[in-house]
């Protein structure tokens, strides 16, 4: 079991409340996944700038990092430390260079996400505690996805928590379990796509990234996934300007969606949606099996 929540805002007036709304939804899903929690938020697009969310078991490794990056690359960057994570703000065109430099400077730092808008925060612990550690309620953004984890396929670790991000501004969360992730991981490796963990969900994320690198849209990549991913899944996917949902053909993992003029919302259960504004009059429905849903800004 796991819990998923997602929110795609149409009404700009709600953007300052995105983090608070997602946190409320996430905490409601605590009993579906009390071992870890994570959230991906798509913030404001700062022209020409990009962000890297980094994670380290011991956050002291971030000390002095911004200065060292500047010394190595000549690129001025800022680093904002938040508990075990840090968000590095950098010029968009320097992303590859800065990532390479961080890898060489600190081998114990993991990249949670990279892109123009995405930030990912995830940790082991109760969803409410995780949200508090990272000040999630204060986050502003256009859309976001959260996950509460009850692990089945791999260990309860920070890196095993969702969301997984395997491409710029992309992320994926999963309720279910994949049965062909090992063969798919080998297939992706032959295509030059590598994943960092033993987790089945990360393979699904990497698969979608690979499909989109090959030219597919998010919708097309999700359609292809219905044929190529074997197992149980309800996926919610985020891209820079979009938000997608797909369920496997058996569809035993629950999903409820709601749409109003202000937002599109996803919850593993209706309980997660009850505090959203205007939910009483929202269009509420259960997404069909093997059917791709997505929205773009």
């Amino acid at each position, binding site marked *: 079991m796991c819990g998923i929540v997602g929110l795609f805002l149409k009404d700009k007036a709600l953007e300052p409340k995105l983090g608070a709304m997602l946190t409320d939804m996430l905490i409601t899903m605590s009993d579906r996944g009390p071992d870890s929690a994570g959230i991906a938020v798509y913030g404001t697009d700062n022209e020409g700038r990009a962000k890297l969310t980094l994670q380290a078991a011991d956050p002291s490794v971030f000390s002095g990092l911004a200065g060292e990056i500047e010394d190595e690359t000549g690129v001025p960057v800022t680093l904002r430390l938040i508990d075990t994570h840090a968000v590095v703000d950098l010029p968009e065109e320097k992303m590859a260079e800065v990532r390479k430099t961080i890898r060489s400077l600190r081998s114990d730092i993991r990249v949670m996400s990279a892109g123009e808008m995405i930030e990912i925060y995830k940790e082991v612990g109760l969803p409410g505690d995780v949200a508090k550690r990272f000040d999630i309620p204060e986050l502003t953004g256009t859309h976001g996805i959260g996950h509460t984890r009850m692990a089945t396929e791999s260990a309860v670790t920070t890196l095993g928590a969702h969301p997984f991000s395997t491409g710029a501004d992309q992320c994926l969360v999963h309720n279910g379990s994949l049965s062909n992730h090992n063969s798919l991981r080998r297939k992706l490796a032959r295509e030059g796509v590598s994943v960092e963990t033993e987790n089945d969900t990360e393979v699904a994320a990497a698969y979608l990234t690979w499909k989109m690198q090959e030219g597919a849209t998010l919708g097309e990549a999700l359609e292809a996934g219905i044929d190529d991913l074997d197992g149980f899944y309800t996926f919610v996917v985020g891209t820079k300007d979009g938000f997608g949902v797909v369920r496997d053909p058996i569809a035993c993992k629950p999903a409820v969606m709601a749409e109003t003029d202000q937002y599109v919302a996803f919850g593993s259960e209706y309980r997660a949606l009850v505090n959203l504004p205007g939910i009483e009059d929202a269009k*509420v429905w259960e997404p069909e099996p093997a059917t791709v849903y997505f929205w773009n800004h």
Partner: protein
Amino acid sequence: MQTFDLEANGLRALNETLQAQTNTTNETAWDVVNPRGSHAIAVGLDAPIEVTVNGSTGYYCAGMNQQATVHVKGNVGPGVAENMMSGKVVVEGDASQYAGATGHGGLLVIKGNASSRCGISMKGIDIVVGGNVGHMSAFMAQAGHLVVCGDAGDALGDSIYEAKLFVRGSVKSLGADCVEKEMRPEHIAKLTELLSEAGIDADPAEFKRYGSARQLYSFNIDNAY
């Protein structure tokens, strides 16, 4: 009329209160407010009382019901009226997966759509759905009736025993050993009665009947893998 605020007083208090009602109770009408998608609302009732839930519910609403009438003014999550024995459960909105699963008796009315596995392993319950049902509905259905006023999804009635299925719209596909059957006067009569009890206005003559071809009852080597 007794009003119970679920948010203020909690689920355990609600179910204990409702389960404590006896056949001779004078408090026969209950209004539940603020359900907010909670699970297991009004489960295990066994008295001729009427419970109205004002809003949408989560998993297993009105499960194991006996005698009581439970009316949900909203949508219901997975497993509504699961293993119902008798009584009546009416859902004004849609139902999620496995509505009425394993039910032995009583009537379940879903005025909207029901998703996958509606009536799975039903054992005598009658289910009337105003809209559509999803895939694998009436899987291994043993007894009772499933009435679908809209369309049915894939694999309707897979491995069905003796339940009777009535569908007004299209059937995406029939499951193993489920076939269309002749609509005889006794079937029209039963369907008329069920639609009337459900309060759904539909012409029984527009429905088709589906049931077991009875080819899976004894071992057939051609069915083995």
